[in-house]
């Protein structure tokens, strides 16, 4: 482990001469972090290897650590024999609608609660925030009954309607709008802009980081949701991708190659997003404890 210039400058910042002991300490963290990073990557590596392995090798005993050759049979069979393509399309539709609606509705409401003055505003905001406390499991049964009376069960709408807006989204956007200087909006108002024009032309363009956070929050939630689609959708051609791969467990038991190929297809879009927008994902994670 070479001690780089950067490490040295980091240590001089601590007002301490870079003694040999100290140099060893810094590089010591590599011995902790590298194995941990490998450990965290192992499940993904296994998933990828299994997806690309010949099916028969995965049920051999004992199974090989590395497949003897690469095979696309699992992936081919996944796209040929299952509805995965349809499910991907369904999940994409659900996520795109969810994200679009979320961005529009939550930024509007967030702005209203942050900057406009009207009767009932504070009460409305408190009511919205209070709903964060209600667990989704409590809402599932009545929502199911409600949706079935509205004829929404077994439609894609059932999957995206609960994701059209969220209390968290409104809270997030309100906090953001409160943090930008009000003078900009005052200047726009003096120039004769009304509230809507001010919002669309002045405020919203500044809100890109907050909107990115909100979009990622919604994407993670809508794309990865399992329990609600499980309740609301029974028709196979309307499955979301998560429902589809979960269903494999009863229909494709131990067809590891196909199962793992399905996993790769379901996970890869988010992983790619993560790699490209890691900063925004981390900001999103810092603000929510989604998933569970």
């Amino acid at each position, binding site marked *: 482990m070479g001690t780089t210039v950067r490490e040295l400058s980091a240590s001089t910042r601590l007002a301490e001469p870079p003694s040999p002991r100290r140099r060893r300490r810094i590089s010591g963290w*590599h011995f902790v*972090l590298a194995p941990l990073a490998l450990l965290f990557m192992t499940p993904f590596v296994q998933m990828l290897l299994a997806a690309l392995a010949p099916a028969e090798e995965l049920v051999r005993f004992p199974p090989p*650590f590395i497949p003897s050759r690469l095979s696309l049979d699992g992936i081919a069979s996944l796209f040929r024999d299952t509805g995965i393509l349809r499910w991907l399309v369904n999940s994409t539709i659900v996520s795109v609608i969810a994200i679009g609606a979320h961005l529009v509705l939550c930024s509007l409401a967030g702005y209203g609660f942050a900057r406009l003055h009207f009767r009932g505003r504070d009460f409305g905001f408190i009511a919205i925030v209070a709903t964060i406390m209600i*667990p989704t499991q409590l809402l599932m049964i009545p929502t199911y009954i409600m949706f079935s009376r509205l004829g929404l069960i077994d439609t894609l709408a059932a999957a995206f309607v609960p994701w059209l807006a969220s209390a968290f*989204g409104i809270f997030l956007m309100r906090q953001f709008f409160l943090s930008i200087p009000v003078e900009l909006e005052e200047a726009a108002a003096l120039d004769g802009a009304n509230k809507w024009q001010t919002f669309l032309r002045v405020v919203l363009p500044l809100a890109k980081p907050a909107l990115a956070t909100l979009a990622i929050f919604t994407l993670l939630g809508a794309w990865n949701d399992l329990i609600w689609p499980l309740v609301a959708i029974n028709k196979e051609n309307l499955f979301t991708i998560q429902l589809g791969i979960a269903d494999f467990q009863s229909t494709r038991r131990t067809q590891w190659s196909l199962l793992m190929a399905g996993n790769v297809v379901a996970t890869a879009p988010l992983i790619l997003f993560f790699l490209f927008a890691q900063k925004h994902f981390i900001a999103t994670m810092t603000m929510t404890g989604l998933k569970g």
Partner: protein
Amino acid sequence: MATTTEPASPPRTPRPGSRQGRIEPRPRGRSRWVRDMLEGWSFVGPAMLIILGLSVFPALWAFVLSLQKWNGFATPKFIGGANYARLVTDSEFIDAVVHTAVYVILFVPASVLTGLFLAVALNRNIRFIGVYRTAIFVPFVASAAATGILSTYLFSPQYGLVNNVLRVLGLPTQGWLEDPNQAMIVIAIMSLWGQAAFTTVIYLAALQDIPSELVESARIDGASRWKAFWYVIWPQLGPVTVFVTIWQVIGAIQLFDLVYTTTRGGPLDATKTIVYFLWEKAFKNLQFGYGSAAAYLLFLVTLLITIGMVIYARRKNLEAF
């Protein structure tokens, strides 16, 4: 993201009928008031309608349902608190509570400690730190469904990597998800894999908020690294620890997805959690009233635990909220 508390809310001028502040001078009076109302509600109305319609209304309805016996088709029958009375004596439900508690005890301390450890490890400027962070954070985006399916593969007694490694090391192989005593441990391990990023990121943000002068002066005063951590950094992390613990407890009590995609409550019901019980009652057996009562108990328990922890934190002077 700045979470400043209303730094820029416009000063309200005391003019009667004008609550607009200095943003826009406009005619006073009733028409103005109506206009502000319409304007305001046109911004917040649509989102509010959806959120309240999909939370407050169903939450109230769920309470009504919990007092009824109803299968979704026949006429609902009002039975008062009978569902609740039945729940607290239903051994299946009590088992579900126990299984959930086991998971909370396995998962929450592990996830908080892992997050703390990883954050301390990752909070330094060394080579490849970006690679390490990415590797540890990426699993966060894997869905519970994908994680569950992956778990059944990795921990498969015959074909899985974990037993394969044990075999090579000459250690006895295990039943894992097929063993009632181990299934919940496997689920906790895989949850940890998927969620360590969350606690890590929260701790990392908190660590970076601690002024480096604090640690430096302790070090200059002769404190060892360990002592500097224990006496300077750790007390600063108190509120964050309370926050992540509460958050992880709430999440852990609601465990469902991973159970559904690994064991479906088995083996021998060993991983049947409260939410799994609720889902099964409501959507497999169509006992909407009974399921709703279980959901309300879950809500109540969550609320009590949260309030209890907040009070505990206040007593210890850790302001997490």
